């Protein structure tokens, strides 16, 4: 046997079996019980789990417009550090990604960074205003081949606009990713409406404002026979609606963020806006419903909703602060803690929810492939028995708004491999990584 | 711990102070006793009743809380504020006798003088203390003293009065050095 480029030795595959993975160029050329040949590079992965490279369907990279908060490059580094080989750049940049020009720019920046695939998401409506459709077709036909469209940050609240968007994307098999938030019911809303908001005197954000839009949109998707994706589901009621819709055969998928799998609204009691996020943190019973739904597949995927903000946007009064928290570098640890260590999910299911399924929803053909001969070598090697301490001063993102500062989390991402190249080596971004 | 004054000692001391007050002020007609809470207030009451027994007249007696006038509030835990009650006669042009249990640094008395200054202008202000333990930090001296007790700074003087503590006794705690 000739010398191969890279071998990952002794890692546990998602199905629990241990194997050596041989990589040549961009591809996996063999998965074997015991590799005996020569290799240029060998990763000793004993005790580690190897998963297909993680795919995030919901990332705010802030470029163009807010490069102080994040750039495509800094976000790519944060992604590689967190085990991702693909990100989906949300459209709420400045200018908004509502034309082929902007999505191509973001796509090109991703390629230049070279640490992972950056797939731009196109805006559903011009300027995210919810009034008229953006150039959806041109974005789909651009170099960026956009398939996912979202006004995220805003809800496509006009039912007629939503209907038209759902119909229009059928032309090329796209999907509308809805940020479900009834705007009238959430004017000035600050946090989940309930006991905690009543006590803190912060304007409530009722669960029904989210659920009413989800209910409407699954019915619309059914009516026009199109494909709908619900961003960041947060309520037990929303889970019930998705479960009902799936049982009816409606073509809907749903995501949950790592933070909604762990954090609850009582954290607002500190009035520290690090916990201010859209949609808001909900209650303990919502968290339990979300975990169960992710485990049983009602919720299809985990997506980070990574939302970087500069320090001054969080060092202020709660009601003045920006919504959002970092997610890329901690996502896998939070999922391991809440879903795997709790026994709710296997690593195989993690691979499904964080790689295979998001890639298939987004139509990312080279991503989310099985770990087998012939697949693209997009992989992540994690040590699930190691603990690490989150330090906001050490994150690779340009921003530091992580809600987990000081927390001990399980699971360390040791290596990330993007199309055969190591982008993360022993927890360090490879400067030579990327092409 | 050693007992410095027994109950009979205290009684004798207060009787002597009462006589001295009468002597110095040539009778009881102009005097107003103001006790500094908590124990000074009870001592003032006792002196007032001894004097009124001797003289056969009612003696003006009140309390003067000095908590809000202390100069060390920044350093100590806040104390509950005790009542200040000025007898109807007032203090204007009277001979005010401040009464406290222990005279030590003199800071309490300085605060009392400040508090008194806010209330009116007595003709004279005099000071009676059951115990003078020394270690003055200010130029203040008592006019009437029950007993001079030489102590070291590390020691503490404990005054028990039957009205609060169930019995009368003055003791010194801690080692002299």
């Amino acid at each position, binding site marked *: 046997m000739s010398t191969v480029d890279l071998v990952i030795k002794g890692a546990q595959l998602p199905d629990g079996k241990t194997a050596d993975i041989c990589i040549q160029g961009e591809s996996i050329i063999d998965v074997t019980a015991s590799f005996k040949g020569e290799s240029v590079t060998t990763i000793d992965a004993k005790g580690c789990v190897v998963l297909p490279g993680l795919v995030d369907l919901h990332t705010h990279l802030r470029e163009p417009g807010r490069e102080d908060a994040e750039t495509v490059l800094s976000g790519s580094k944060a992604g590689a550090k967190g085990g991702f080989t693909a990100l989906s750049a949300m459209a709420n940049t400045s200018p908004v990604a509502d034309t082929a020009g902007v999505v191509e720019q973001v796509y090109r920046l991703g390629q230049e960074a070279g640490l992972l695939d950056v797939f731009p998401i196109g805006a559903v409506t011009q300027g995210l205003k919810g009034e008229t459709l953006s150039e959806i077709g041109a974005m789909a036909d651009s170099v960026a081949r956009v398939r996912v469209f979202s006004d995220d940050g805003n809800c496509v609240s006009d039912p007629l606009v939503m209907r038209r968007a759902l119909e229009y994307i059928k032309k090329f098999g796209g999907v509308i990713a809805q940020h479900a938030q009834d705007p009238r019911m959430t004017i000035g809303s600050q946090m989940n409406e309930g006991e905690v908001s009543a006590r803190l005197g912060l304007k409530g954000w009722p669960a029904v404002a989210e659920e009413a839009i989800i209910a409407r949109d699954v019915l619309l998707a059914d009516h026009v026979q199109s494909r709908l994706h619900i961003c960041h589901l947060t309520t037990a009621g929303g889970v019930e609606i998705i479960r009902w819709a799936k049982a009816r055969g409606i073509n809907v998928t749903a995501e949950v963020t790592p933070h909604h799998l762990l954090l609850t609204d009582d954290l607002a009691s500190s*009035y520290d806006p690090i916990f201010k996020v859209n949609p808001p943190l909900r209650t303990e019973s919502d968290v339990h419903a979300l975990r169960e739904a992710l485990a049983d597949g009602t919720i299809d995927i985990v997506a980070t909703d990574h939302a970087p903000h500069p320090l001054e946007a969080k060092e202020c009064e709660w009601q003045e602060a920006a919504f959002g928290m970092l997610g890329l570098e901690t996502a896998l640890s939070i999922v391991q803690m809440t879903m795997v260590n709790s026994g709710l999910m296997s690593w195989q299911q993690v691979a499904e929810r964080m790689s295979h399924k998001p890639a298939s929803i987004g139509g990312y053909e080279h991503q989310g492939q099985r770990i087998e001969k012939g697949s693209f070598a997009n992989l992540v090697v994690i040590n699930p028995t190691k603990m690490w301490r989150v330090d906001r001063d050490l994150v690779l993102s340009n921003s530091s708004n992580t809600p987990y500062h000081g927390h001990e989390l399980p699971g360390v991402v040791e290596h990330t491999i993007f199309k055969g190249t190591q982008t993360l080596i022993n927890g360090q971004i490879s400067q030579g990584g990327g092409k | 711990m050693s007992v410095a004054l027994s109950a009979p000692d205290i009684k004798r001391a207060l009787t002597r102070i009462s006589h001295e007050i009468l002597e110095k002020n040539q009778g009881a007609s102009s005097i107003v006793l103001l006790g500094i809470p*908590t124990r000074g207030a009870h001592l003032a009451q006792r002196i007032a009743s001894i004097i009124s027994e001797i003289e056969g007249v009612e003696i003006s007696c009140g309390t003067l809380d000095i908590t*809000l006038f202390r100069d060390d*509030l920044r350093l100590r*835990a806040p104390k509950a504020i005790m009542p*200040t009650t000025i007898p109807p006669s007032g203090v204007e042009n009277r001979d005010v006798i401040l009464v406290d249990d222990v005279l030590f640094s003199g800071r309490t008395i300085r605060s009392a003088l400040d508090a008194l200054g806010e209330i009116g202008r007595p003709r004279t202000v005099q000071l009676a203390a059951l115990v003078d333990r020394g270690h003055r930090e200010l130029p203040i001296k008592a006019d009437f003293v029950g007993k001079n007790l030489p102590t070291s700074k590390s020691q503490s003087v404990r005054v028990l009065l039957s009205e609060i503590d169930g019995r009368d006794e003055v003791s010194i705690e801690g080692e002299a050095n």
Partner: protein
Amino acid sequence: MRHLLSIADLSKIEAISILDTANELARVSDGAVKKLPTLRGRTIVNLFAEDSTRTRISFEAAAKRLSADVINFSAKGSSVSKGESLKDTAMTLQAMGADAVVIRHSASGAAQRLADSQWMSGSVVNAGDGTHEHPSQALLDAFTIRKHLGLGKSDLEGLSVAIVGDVLHSRVARSNVLLLAKLGAKVTLVAPPTLLPVGVESWPASVSYDFDSVIPFVDVVMMLRVQQERMTEMYFPNAREYSRYFGLNSDRMKSMKPGAIVMHPGPMNRGLEISAEVADSSRSVITEQVTNGVSVRMAILYVLLTGGSLEAGGN
């Protein structure tokens, strides 16, 4: 006790000792003494990022009677309302050597942000934060109730209090519910369902939508201000209908218990939540609330700026 941010942070004993201290301070200031040297050399900043002349004046009078130096960093036109961040303002106050900051702010939690941050080291007194709390108002209300109906007791055990009106947006209501319940009073919130927060079930108070059924049984009727803009936000149809069901007029006042009192934190909308006859009646203790405000705020500043916890009596 270092800050006063929320009634929830106070124990019953601490609350009562503030009221007792206020009582003694009221007696002192009622007498000849107008000014106490207690806080001489200390600097207190009134940081009012929201207009409230009456609360500011009350805190200012309290601080001055205790001989503190007072700096007013007040309302409209100040840097706080011009978008200077709370952090920058706090750092300015720190540089000025503020021993305490009395903060009024339109954002819920602003006082706690100031206290929890490393931006300044002084004590923080919450003088009203958004729709969260207004602890000094609740303390002066409890002080006023105790004075009128306390029968010499230190707490309010056995008393019934109705809090009527816009509970949803009221920081006065939030602080009062917590404090009155802590002191043993039975609290009933009376409001249209639109003006009660979702989650009110968890408060130590019962709820009624029917003012008339509550009014004959309470010792205190505490009216809350209703802001005009609530009408345009559809919390109720119009002022007339609101007054009819939730306003306190002379007719309703007739069904009150003998000796029961009427309170209002001010400023009042005469004719909307309270009629002029009621506001000026012998049951009304509204002007006395203002007077008591100064003593209670003196007590708060005394307790906070002399450090440590209140120890009982003795020398």
